[in-house]
């Protein structure tokens, strides 16, 4: 039943991310209007619980979503299977979650 669980997790993370993607694209369109700088980004995000929760949720959801998506590609196109496939995908999920949360902490902490 692992595939059914992965299917549900993939759709669940997609639904969680749908409003976050809209928000992220909106922020990007707004933020690039006067050029990007570290001061401009940090002035918006530093010390903000809202952005920490927004992007923390986004980073965790995308780590799971990307790992499951890459799992399907690695299985169907690279023919990985079994324990190797599971280990690679757990490593991808953990790596992306770690890097993502570190990035969120860097700009909101």
């Amino acid at each position, binding site marked *: 039943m692992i595939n059914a669980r992965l299917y549900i997790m993939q*759709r669940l993370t*997609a*639904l969680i991310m*749908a409003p976050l*993607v*809209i928000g*992220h*694209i909106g922020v*990007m*369109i*707004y933020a*690039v*209007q*006067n*050029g*990007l*700088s*570290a001061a401009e*980004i*940090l002035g918006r995000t530093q010390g903000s619980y809202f952005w920490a929760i927004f992007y923390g949720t986004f*980073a965790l959801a*995308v780590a799971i979503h*990307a790992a499951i*998506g*890459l799992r399907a*590609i690695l299985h169907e196109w690279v023919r990985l299977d079994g324990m190797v496939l599971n280990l690679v995908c757990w490593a*991808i999920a953990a*790596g*992306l979650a770690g*890097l*993502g949360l*570190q*990035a*969120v*902490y*860097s*700009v909101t*902490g």
Partner: protein
Amino acid sequence: MKVSGHQRHGLWFAYISHRLSGLLLALFLPLHFWVLSLALNDRAALDGFLSWTDLWYVKVAEYGLVFLLSLHFFGGLRLMALEWLPWSARQKTYAATALAAGFAVSTSFFLSATFYG
């Protein structure tokens, strides 16, 4: 390369564009996260990187990334509508709409990134 019959179907294009946009976004994510992490350790390096984004070809690459994100987003909505809602004969229209919406959103970003000051 031989093109099979099913690959000429309009919705095969929807499938492959969703898969490839997802793959490219997943490959981009570690770089994106790493650059943002510079804010904590090396703010000058982050500013150096951000000034690099003023180059026209980097802006075009950003346009491509925002297009991939919006294409994956609208393509995913189409896919979930296909799976969870009653079958609709308009699936090809929805797929074309997803592509058009991806272009519209990413072009808004590009115009916003290009014309300022």
